[in-house]
């Protein structure tokens, strides 16, 4: 698979996941927070049943950047931790694997709160 195809497939996969979420937002009373939670849990599930990896092979960042990818990172972390250290992996794996994303997001948030309070919303 050449690079251009990979990029187009990523756009396709990510685009479709976003359209599904958009339709859920517009057609149901689901809030953005619920949709994010749903996508993360879905990511764990897709990894658990072995669908995520084949999808990642096709769409690459198209499934990894959406929060499904975050869920899959948690799922993979749990699995690998169990294989490596047994039952304790059930509780250590998820957060260990997702630590990088969480830490960077929180750190940037903290830094932002130190610099600015934000501008008022505009129409």
């Amino acid at each position, binding site marked *: 698979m050449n690079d251009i195809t990979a990029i187009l497939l990523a756009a396709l996969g990510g685009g479709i996941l976003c359209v599904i979420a958009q339709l859920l937002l517009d057609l149901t009373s689901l809030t953005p927070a619920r949709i994010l939670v749903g996508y993360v849990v879905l990511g764990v599930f897709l990894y658990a049943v072995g669908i995520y990896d084949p999808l990642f092979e096709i769409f690459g960042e198209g499934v990894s950047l959406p929060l499904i990818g975050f869920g899959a990172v948690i799922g993979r972390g749990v699995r690998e931790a169990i294989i490596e250290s047994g039952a304790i992996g059930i509780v250590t794996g998820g957060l260990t694997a997702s630590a990088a994303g969480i830490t960077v997001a929180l750190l940037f948030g903290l830094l932002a709160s130190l610099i600015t309070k*934000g501008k*008022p*919303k505009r*129409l």
Partner: protein
Amino acid sequence: MRVRRLSRPPRFVSWASVGGYEESRGPLGEKLDFVDKTDTFGQKTWELAEGEMGRCALNMALTKAGLSHDRLELLVAGDLQNQCVASSLGAGSFGIPFLGVYGACSTCTESLLILSVMLSEGCATLGAAATTSHNSAAERQFRTPVEYGAQRAPSAQWTATAGGAFILSSDYGIISCERKGSVELSEVAVGKIIDGATADGSNMGGAMAFAAADTILSYFEETGNDPAMFDHIVTGDLGRVGSDILRHILGEKLPKAVSRHTDCGLLLYDSEIQDVHSGASGCGTSASVLAAHFLPALERGDLSDILFLSTGALMSPSSVLQGRNISAVAPLIRLTHRDNEKTEREEPSNE
């Protein structure tokens, strides 16, 4: 009986309106007495900014009337924040006896109603009412952070960064000011809590329309007045959706009133250039539109008689999360233009 005719109808001595950046771009932008395009009003937090708006508005109303703040015997004020904190922050520096009121977006009419009844009954002779709302403070409290990226529904309304202050008196003899109020607050009606039949926080106009309809219909039923007597039946912030529903109901029950209806939420912004969706909301909407648009027209005599009701969507962040329907209330006041000279003959005590 819900409609009360005031025995000594107080009059508007002076008033002032304030607004933020979006309000200054709207059709009433030129008419607002004070505008801060940064929306901060020189304060560090949005909550304090809202308090400062109320303080500015009251200060300007006092200046216009040539009155010192210690002449005021009563201040009835409200805003959109938890525990009405903006009003108490803003009014604190004046040292005026204070009543904080909360009626969500109906606060403007609610505060004028309470003040006018107290003035009419002789509890005070000179008093003020003030109402504010601030978009950023309200977004923070009711919805999401200011910089949070979210899409607004087509039925969603835009909380106005606006406010108004009004000085009223029931006794013209004691006012040593140049201004001669010719707008009288003659009748009041307290609204009932009416279920809005929706829990959707982005459709408040729809939820409030039924409360407005209830108050308007019972007003005309009780008084037997003809809607044609009034130049306008003004609602506070029903917006596009709520106005359409109200006009539908009036069309069925009181067809003559339909053409009289107008809504402050549709007057504050220019929907051609401002992406407001269903219109303005927040208690500052009706306060600023009343002070910047309707009161000057009544004072000049361009309008002679209007019914003014603000509608309040009564909910809290918790009640929304708990899925409770939004209920609404719509208090009503009647504002009438009176000829000054005629009054002076009737009341010899006047100067």
